[in-house]
C-alpha cells in the first residue's frame, strides 16, 4: 500500500538510437565522441539537408516483451511505434522486470500480476512518418490549385481500394501506448502526448505525478521522435530550419556553437521505468536514481520564425522542478539541454542556463544528445535522461561534440573529452519553439 509521500525512483531506462539498442550503447558512443549523423539514401538525400541520424535497421529481435502474434510484428507498426516498443522492451529488461514465457507460447512477456497498478504515458510528435498509405491515397484524390486544395471525387473509388484497414489503424496516435499496454501489461492509467519536443519530459513528469497521486505503482514513460522522414524534413524546409546541406554530416549537429547552421534530422526512442520507491524495494529492483522533481511552463512563442519568446519559460519550468526536488542551483552537477543547433534558439537556451545556474554556469557540463544523433523530437528528454543516468552511474560525462567555438551566450564549460566527476543531481531541460518548456530533476541514490 502506498504512503502519501512515497518517493519515485527510476529502475530502468531504455533507448533505441542510431547507435543501436540500449542507453549504455548510446552513452558509450557519446563517450567516444562519435556522431551517427550520415548521408541519407535517395530520395531523401535530395531533400534538405540530405543527412541525418537514422536508425537504419529495425529488426524484430530488438523488441523485448511483446508477444509475437501477427499484429505485433514490427512491419505492422509505424516507425514511431517501433521506436517506443523497442525502447520500452529495453527499459523493462534494464529494470529487471520479470519476463516469463506465456502459457502455450515461447514469447517472453511480463506477468499480469500487478497490471492494474501499471500504466504508460508516451509522447510522440505524431505517429506516422510518411502518412504511409494516406499519402498514396491523397496523391490520388487531392489536387493543388491556386489558393488551396481540392479533392477530385472521380478518383476516390480507385484510391479507396489502395487503402487497407490495417494501414489506417496502425497510424492512430495512441498506438505506441496501446502497444505498451500489451508489452508492459499495463491496465492502469494511459496517455499519449502529442506535438512538441517537450512531450517526452511531460510524459515522464505526469507519470511521476500519477505514482505520487496513487494512480499507479509503476509507470512506463518516455517519448519517441523522428525527423529523418520526408514529412518532417519538408516541414522544416518550408521554414528554412534545416541545417546546411553542404555541411559535413558528422559535424552538422553543433549545439551552442557559432558555426551551427540549423536543425539536423534524427530519430530515437527513450523510455524510463518509474516505480514507487517502496514497491521497487519490495521486488529488489535496481535503482538508477530518484526522480525528485518536475516542472513545465508555457510561454507563447514570438511570430518571428517561431522562436521562443525568451528563456523565461524554460527557467520557470526548471525552477519548478528544482523547488519540488528541494535543491538549489548550487547542487546541480549536470544539465542536459535541447541544443537545437540553430544559433538563435541556442542563444536563448544558453542565456536561460546562465541565469539558472548563476555563478556555477562555468562549471556545470551541458550534455546534448542532438550533437550525436540529430533532433529526436519528443525523445530528446527521455534519451538525455537515460544518458545522464549512465553518466551518474559511471561517474563520467561525455565530451561536447562539435562545440569548438561556443556562441557568446553560452557560458558553460566546453571539453571535447569526457569528464570524470561525481554527479549528485542532474537537471533535464527541454525548451521548445512551440513555447512548451519542461524539466526534471534526477537525484543520485
Amino acid at each position, binding site marked *: 500500500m502506498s504512503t502519501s509521500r512515497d518517493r519515485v525512483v527510476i529502475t530502468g531506462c531504455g533507448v533505441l538510437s542510431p547507435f543501436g539498442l540500449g542507453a549504455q550503447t548510446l552513452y558509450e558512443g557519446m563517450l567516444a565522441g562519435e556522431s551517427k549523423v550520415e548521408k541519407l539514401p535517395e530520395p531523401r538525400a535530395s531533400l534538405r539537408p540530405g543527412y541525418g541520424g537514422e536508425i537504419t535497421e529495425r529488426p524484430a529481435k530488438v523488441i523485448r516483451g511483446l508477444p509475437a502474434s501477427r499484429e505485433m510484428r514490427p512491419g505492422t507498426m509505424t516507425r514511431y511505434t517501433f521506436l517506443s516498443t523497442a525502447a520500452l522492451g529495453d527499459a523493462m529488461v534494464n529494470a529487471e522486470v520479470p519476463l516469463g514465457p506465456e502459457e502455450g507460447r515461447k514469447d517472453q512477456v511480463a506477468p499480469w500480476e500487478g497490471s492494474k497498478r501499471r500504466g504508460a504515458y508516451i509522447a510522440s510528435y505524431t505517429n506516422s512518418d510518411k502518412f504511409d498509405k494516406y499519402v498514396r491515397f491523397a496523391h490520388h484524390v*487531392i489536387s493543388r490549385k491556386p489558393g488551396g486544395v481540392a479533392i477530385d471525387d472521380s478518383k476516390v473509388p480507385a484510391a479507396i481500394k489502395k487503402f487497407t484497414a490495417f494501414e489506417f*489503424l496502425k497510424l492512430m496516435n495512441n498506438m505506441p*501506448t496501446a*502497444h505498451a499496454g500489451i508489452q508492459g501489461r499495463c491496465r492502469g492509467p494511459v496517455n499519449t502526448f502529442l506535438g512538441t519536443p517537450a512531450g517526452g519530459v511531460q510524459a515522464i513528469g505526469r507519470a511521476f505525478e500519477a505514482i505520487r497521486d496513487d494512480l499507479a505503482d509503476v509507470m512506463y514513460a518516455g517519448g519517441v521522435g523522428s525527423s529523418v522522414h520526408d514529412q518532417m524534413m519538408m516541414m522544416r524546409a518550408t521554414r528554412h530550419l534545416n541545417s546546411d546541406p553542404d555541411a559535413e554530416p558528422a559535424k552538422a549537429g553543433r549545439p551552442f556553437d557559432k558555426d551551427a547552421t540549423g536543425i539536423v534530422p534524427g530519430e530515437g526512442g527513450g523510455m524510463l521505468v518509474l516505480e514507487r520507491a517502496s514497491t521497487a524495494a519490495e521486488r529488489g529492483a535496481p535503482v538508477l536514481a530518484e526522480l525528485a522533481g518536475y516542472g513545465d511552463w508555457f510561454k507563447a512563442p514570438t511570430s518571428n520564425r517561431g522562436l521562443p519568446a525568451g528563456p523565461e519559460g524554460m527557467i520557470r519550468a526548471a525552477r519548478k522542478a528544482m523547488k519540488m526536488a528541494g535543491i538549489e542551483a548550487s547542487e546541480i552537477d549536470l544539465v542536459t539541454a535541447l541544443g537545437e543547433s540553430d544559433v538563435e534558439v541556442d542563444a536563448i537556451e544558453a542565456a536561460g542556463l546562465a541565469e539558472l545556474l548563476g555563478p556555477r554556469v562555468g562549471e556545470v557540463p551541458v550534455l546534448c544528445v542532438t550533437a550525436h544523433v540529430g533532433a529526436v523530437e519528443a525523445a530528446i528528454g527521455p534519451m538525455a535522461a537515460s544518458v545522464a543516468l549512465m553518466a551518474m552511474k559511471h561517474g563520467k560525462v561525455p565530451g561536447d561534440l562539435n562545440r569548438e567555438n561556443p556562441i557568446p551566450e553560452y557560458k558553460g564549460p566546453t571539453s571535447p573529452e569526457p569528464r570524470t566527476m561525481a554527479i549528485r543531481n542532474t537537471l533535464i531541460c527541454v525548451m521548445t519553439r512551440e513555447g512548451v518548456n519542461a524539466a526534471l530533476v534526477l537525484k543520485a541514490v
Partner: protein
Amino acid sequence: MVSGPRTAESQVPVVVTGLGLVTSAGAGVDSAWKVLSEGTSALSELTLFDPGPYGLEIAGESHSIERVPGQDRALQLLDLAADEVLGAAGWGDTQRGPETGVVLGTCQGAIESASAIHRSYASRPVPEPTDADRKAFAEYRPGFGTTRLAKRVGAEGPTSTVGMVCVSSSVALMHAVDLIRCGEARRVLAGGFEAFTQFVLTGFHCIGALASGPLRPFDQNRDGTVLAEGAVLMTLEREDDAIARGATILARVIGCGVAADAFHMTAPDPKGGGLERAVRQAFAEAGIGPADVDYISAHGTGTAFNDGMESVAFARIFKELADAGQMPPLTGVKSVFGHTLGAAGALDAAMAILAMRHGVLTPTVSHVAPLEGLEDWDFNPHQTRPVEGMDIVLSTNSAFGGNNSALLLQRAGV
C-alpha cells in the same frame, strides 16, 4: 504540490464554469441542446466531398463553417468553440498567467492541407516554399491548436495535447482535472476538436465501421458509426475560485478513471475489463458506487464491437441494480451528433451536464430494438423526458487500442 492517495476527502473540488461548442447541429451550446432535447438528428447529407464511393447517406458535417482556402477546418471549429466558452465563463485578463493551463485532445489536425503540400514537395525538383506552405506545415503540428489557444487566453501554465483517438477529449478533461487537483494549475481550458477529413472517413470505410444509415447505439440492427466533426471546450477551475469570482457553476467533476485493456492492438477487450476498471476507479475517487449514478452517457458508437463490449461491462458493474430492475437509464448522444472522435468525450460530457441542469433525460434517437438480454434497460429511445433527482452522471468513452475513460459529474448545487 499535493501528493498522496486520491480520495474523495483529499481532493480539491473542480467545477465546470463554461461550455463552448460547435457540432453538426451548428455553432453554440443552444444549437446542440435544441437538437438533442427535441430528439431530432443533426446528421445530414455530406457536402464536403462526394459521399457516393462510401455508400454514405448522412454524416455529421458542421455547416457552421465554410471551406476557406488557406484556413484549416479543425482550427476554425476550435476558434468558434473558444469564442463561446471564454465569453460564457467570463474569463479575461484575470485568468491569464502561470496558473492557467490548456489541454486539448484531437486525432488528426490539419491533415488534408498538409498532405497536399506533401505531394508537391515529394515531386522533384522540390519547389520553393510559399507562405501558404509555411502556414499549413506550421498548423499541421498536432499541438498547434493547443499552443495557439494557450497564447490566446494568456495561459502560461501546463499545456498538453492528448492523442488518444476516441478518448482524446475525455482524457484531456481528466488530465486538466488532475492538473488542478495536484496544484499545477488553478484553472484549465480543456476539451477536444476534430474536423471531418476524407482520410479518416476512408479509414473507417476500410475497416467496415461505417453505418449504412443512422447511428443506432445498442440496437440489434446497428451496423456502424456515422463520423462527425466538432469542437468542444470547457473551463475547469477550483470550486473556491469559481465561487469567489461569482462564476456560474455548471457541474462538479467528482471522479475520473482511465484504464487500458492491454488486450489487443486495436480491438477492445470483449469482456469490457478496461472500461470496468476505469469506471470503478472513478467511483473510488468520488467515494460513491453504482447505486449513486442517475444516468449513464455511454460511448455508444453503433459498432458491433464497441456497443457489445460496453454493454457487457455495464451489465457487470450495475448487475445488482439491473437484477433489481433499477438499472440507471443509459443513452448515446452520438445517435444525434455522430461520432466526433477527438471531440467525442467532451461532447458527451457537455451534453450530460446540460441534461442535469435541465433535469431531463435526452433520447437515444434511431434506437428501435435493444440488444438481446438488455430489453429491460432504459435507452430512452424516443424523446426527452423530465426526471427528478438527476444529480450524478457517468460519462464513458472507449477507443481503438483498448483505452477507456470514465468521468463522474455532479449537478451544481447538490
